[in-house]
Every structure is written in structure tokens, then in C-alpha cells.
């Protein structure tokens, strides 16, 4: 299934490592919390970037002091109606200032796109085989934000307070090639 990052379908340079599997040669590992707990020193000595995968019942509060070791944190949706990873993402971004990649994995559908981006996710392993266009459309179909969230976008209540109020809510910015940009969504 496609990995979407920066609004492009990209090659995945990471591999989700089974707990018993040995470290891969040709990719960087994403390990479970259990394996991180058991082999922390070994993994750090391997000298490669480390990713951490958290199940939806594993709060990032458990690793709040260790975040500097992770280049990627993958938050798992066992089914798309399990909303815990949204809170995990906001804690990681807003409270702990995690700057690495925040990846949505598991049961991930285009209909979650806006919620995911707004909570601070920036990489998406989609369950369905969705075209990039459909993903971008899903991301763009609601432009009004009522709540402050991890994407830092202006909320309606702030836009209302601006002296020179735009007549329409701001459209997502485009780069010169005409593509929407995930980074702009996260400004």
C-alpha cells in the first residue's frame, strides 16, 4: 500500500521489524515498544536511525523522555474508528515537541486525512489503494478550522479577529508546480 509523505507517494526507506527479526541491512528499522525496552542499548549502538511503533493502547507518555532517539514514530490504528492515536499525535507534537516523522499506520483511510494532518501526522501508510488525487481531494474538501490544533493553522475565531478579514477562508497554498504541499498544510 502506498506511503504518502509531503503529498507525494514515496519509497519507504523504513521497515517495520518483527520483534524476533534481526536488524535489516538495506533499510532503517521501526521497532515495537517492547523491543525498544528490551534492546535499547543494542539498537542505539547499531548507528542507524531508529523508528518506534506504538500500538493505540501505548501512550507516548511512556517514552516522553526518550523521543530524541527516534527519527520516526509510527502510531497504529488497529481500526480507523480507534481515535487514540490522534491524542498521541497531539501530545507528541504539542506537548513534547517531537519534530521527527509522525506516521499513521494500520487501518488508515482517506476519510481520516484532515483529522490526521491537523493532529500532526505527516506520513501516511494507506490501507486502501487511493490515488494521490483522491488523497489530496480528501485533504482539501474542508478548509474551515474551528479548533486550534497541531497543524498551527489559523482558526476561524482568529481569522474573524483579523483587521483586514479575507472575504473567503484562505485556500491551501500551492507551489509553483500547482501541487498542494503538506508542509503548507502544516504552517
Amino acid at each position, binding site marked *: 500500500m502506498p506511503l504518502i509523505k509531503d503529498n507525494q507517494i514515496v519509497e519507504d526507506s523504513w521497515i517495520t521489524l518483527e520483534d524476533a527479526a534481526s536488524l535489516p541491512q538495506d533499510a532503517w528499522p521501526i521497532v515495537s515498544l517492547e523491543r525498544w525496552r528490551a534492546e535499547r542499548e543494542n539498537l542505539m549502538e547499531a548507528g542507524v536511525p531508529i523508528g518506534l511503533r506504538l500500538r493505540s493502547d501505548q*501512550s507516548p507518555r511512556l517514552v516522553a523522555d526518550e523521543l530524541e532517539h527516534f527519527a520516526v514514530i509510527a502510531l497504529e490504528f488497529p481500526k*480507523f*474508528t*480507534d*481515535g*487514540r492515536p*490522534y*491524542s*498521541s499525535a*497531539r501530545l507528541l507534537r*504539542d*506537548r513534547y515537541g517531537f519534530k521527527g516523522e509522525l506516521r499513521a499506520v494500520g487501518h488508515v*483511510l482517506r*476519510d481520516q486525512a*484532515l*483529522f*490526521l494532518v*491537523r*493532529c500532526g501526522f505527516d506520513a501516511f501508510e494507506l490501507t486502501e489503494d487511493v490515488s494521490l488525487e483522491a488523497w489530496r*481531494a480528501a485533504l482539501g*474538501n*474542508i*478548509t*474551515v478550522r*474551528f*479548533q*486550534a*490544533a497541531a497543524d498551527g493553522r489559523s*482558526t*476561524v*475565531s*482568529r*481569522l*474573524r*479577529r483579523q483587521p483586514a478579514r479575507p*472575504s*473567503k*477562508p484562505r485556500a491551501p497554498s500551492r507551489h509553483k508546480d500547482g501541487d498542494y504541499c503538506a508542509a503548507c498544510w502544516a504552517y
Partner: protein
Amino acid sequence: MYRYDEFDRTFVEERVEQFREQVARRLSGEIGEDEFRPLRLMNGLYLQLHAYMLRVAVPYGTLSSQQMRKLAHIARRYDQGYGHFTTRQNIQYNWVKLKEAPDILADLAEVEMHAIQTSGNCIRNVTADHFAGAAADEIEDPRIAAEVVRQWSSLHPEFSFLPRKFKVAVTGAPNDRAAVKVHDIGLQIVRDARGRTGFKVIVGGGLGRTPIIGATIREFLPKRHLLSYLEAILRVYNELGRRDNIYKARIKILVKDLGAEAFARKVEEEWSSLKDQAVDLPDGELRRIESYFAPPAFENLPAVTSGFEAKRFEDRDFARWAQRNVDAHRAPGYAIVTVSLKPEGGVPGDATAEQMEAVADLAAHYSFDEIRVSHEQNLVLPHVRQSDLYAVWQGLVAADLATANVGLISDIIACPGLDYCNLANTRSIPIAQRIGRRFAEIERQHDIGGLKLKISGCINACGHHHIGHIGLLGVDKKGEEFYQITLGGSADENAALGRILGPAFSAETVVDAVETIVDTYVDQRRAAEGFNDTLARIGLDPFKEKLYAPH
């Protein structure tokens, strides 16, 4: 009333188009029912026994006459000519076609309405006191906070997939007409020692299989911190609420399992990190929303209108109606009119398109264009001059909406039951209709006095039976409908859960049982003693003796 600006309008229009695209994917077979289900539920669309049902949000129960006319139009064009007002101040259409649902939403958007978050495991449409802005006992209009919460909760990115549904109710008066103690979060506007207004925060109330009266976790929350505090509560719930068992997933179970004090500590801890971030509204935004709820331009009138008093002497039917269906207004010379949707033998909460239009006309002429939906499934004209009451009453009589039974035994709350709902075990509506007919004589009802009877067709308790003075719960016994009776519940500031009386009654005998209970109460009461007071004094035994004595 709140009016949309371009942001609110854009949001609702975009949501309509988003849903249209989701429906198209479902109709084309691109997605299956499993994936479509949570999407349609986010837009209030249920699949019931016979058809799709669309639940339209009436935020905090406030409607303009234009909006009510649109609801009538939808009833006529897309349904079978009627709609059903619910205990959550919403309206449901029971005969909707999937392919037309996006068109209905587009029609609603034209009058600043939607069906967003009227179902699904998200923050549901916010409810408030149906007498808001009119009640004589009000500290502050609860609709301001309700509107703030409505906007904040709309497609909240973090809280759209909660363990279970989440209901918030707000009251601005000490006499609680919004049942705040049986909601996931109840907000009650209070004054602190310095006279400033804020919220008492009540969490973890609810009905359903595990009825619980909510616990106060904060006595006073300054108004400006409302959203950050709600965000803290919701985050604790989203992270820790149970997801392994649908029947234990509501916040009430989490609060009960942790204990209210421990839960409150978690919320306060979370809030300490949230309250200085950007979650709360910026200065000015609260004032902007407040300004929409400024009182209408009431005339300076004498407190007592002689013409009104004279009509009460002349016309017995009007007098009876005025006694039950008219309440005190905060402005001298005005009154609050409750329009009963409980005619004898009718379906509680149903209104035809013509009736909706009649109420819209009366609101436009006599009530500053405002209508309310009450959680007791009636409509309200909140701002009527006393001198216009007779004309309003005549208008209601003409529309068959003048039943003088508000708060009486036939003012029944009932869920849709097995006539519509695929969760129900038993029917509710026919029982309500039979009770209504049994007590049809209006003099008798007035003699019995205030009595709240509530019927649920299954343990999910949509008919609020736990908090009725008399509650009926439908249970299935080997394929037959039975009704368990509880006594002594209450939804107001003295919220209480009813106690089970004894073995359930069959559908044939349950109306007799209700009559026996009522007769026993009337026999035993002292002077004008209310039902729950009599019950507290004499206990369940006298009722049991009458009901279960060997004949």
C-alpha cells in the same frame, strides 16, 4: 439568534459536498457498508428497520421560523409529510433515501442548518435549556456557551473517533431544564463569591444500561477557559475510555472506575498544560458570539395584562391551557408558550409539515421569530406578549397543537421503539398512545397534576425511563413484549434514578398498572404533594400492594 458568517457558511457547504462524494462512493460500490457506516453516522444518517433515518441538528434547540419552514419542506418533499422531534432537541426524518440525503443537507445549509455530529462516536449536537433567554430564573443565557461548544466540536480532529458518543448539555438557571446531571458533560452557569459567572462542571452522568448521576468535578470554571477544560476532559476520555466493550465505553464508566476525584485530578493535570495554549477563544470572539444572543427588543409592559386575565375567566379551555402550557417570562408582560406535541393518542414528538408551518407563522407574528425544541419533545414559543396569548392559543387550536397537557401524565417522552428502531426490544409509541387515551379526560389529568412518564423500548434508555416519575422499560421475554416499571426518577436539579417496582407487566396489562400507580398516588398524597414527594414519604410498598396483591 446566532447567524452564520462566511466561515460557518463555507464550512457547512463544504461538508455537504464532502458527504455527497462519500455517498457517491457508497452508491458506486467503491466502499462497503463497514467503511461507509462511520462516515454516514458523522452526518446523522442511520439505517433503521425500514429505511434510512436522518437526524438533523437543532443546535441547543433554537430555530427561526424560516428554519422551521425548511424542516416542513423537507418533511413534505423527502419524507412522508412529518418529522419527529427528539429528546436531544433534534428532528428526525424516518423515511429518507440514501441518494437524496445529500440534497436534504444542501437544503438545510440554505437556512444555516446541518446534520453534523448528530450521531457517531463524537461530540454530539449540544443541548441547552429550552427556555434559554426567556426564563425568569436564568443567570445567563446558556446558548452562548452551547454555540461556543458547537463550533469547537465541529469536526474536532482529535475527538471525532471517541470510545463512544459524547453529549454535552448547558443550563443557565438553577432550575435545571436541560438534565445536565445525566449527560457526559453537564455545564451549569453559576456565580462565584465575587459575582462573576462561570461554569460548574459535571461529568459522567448518563442513562442507558448503566444509569448514573454525574459527578461535579469543578465547582467554578472561569468562562474564558471553557474550551481548554473541555479539551482536557475529552483527552483523558479519549486516551483512557474503554474500547473493548461498547457497553462500558461511555465516560460515565471511566469516571466510575477511576472515581470522580481521581478523574478530576487527571483532568486538572491535563488542563494545566492546555489552558495557556491557543485552545481557548481569543478575546473578542466570546463577545462576538454573545452579541447574537442579546435579548430581543421587549416592550415595556405591565407585569399583569388585564386582557389575558379576563380571557382566562371567559374561556375554560384557554384557562386550562394557560395553566399548563404557559410559563413565567423574565420580561414583564411576556410569557413562554409550550406547544404540546402530545395530542391524545398521537405519537410523542411528531409534527406534520402543516403543523411546523403553523408554528413558524405564530413565531413570526408573536415570538420574535423564535422557536425552541424541548428535550421533552415539545416546541416552545419563547417570547409571547401576554396580550397575544389568546390569539396564539387560537392559532394552535386550529393546527391541533393546543393540548393543555404540558407536564401532565400524557406529556409522555417515548423513544421511537420497535416501530422504527432496530435496537428496540419492544414498541414504545403504542403504549404512549394507549396511556394517552386512558387518561384522555383533561380534567382528570389536571387533577392528577404534574407527572412525568417516560417510555424506553429497550435498555438503551432513549426514552429516559430512568428519570421519569414513572418509567417504563420495554423488555423482551421469549418473544413477548413486557414493561418493567420504575418509580421516583427525576431529570431536574434534584436528579434521581427511578427504583424498580417489581416484575414486569405485559403489553396488555401495563396501562392498567400505570393507572393503578396513579390512583394510588392520588389516594395517598397530602394536599398538593408531588409524586416523588409522596413516594419518598410512603415508599414503594403501597404501590406494590395494589399492583401485585393476589386478586
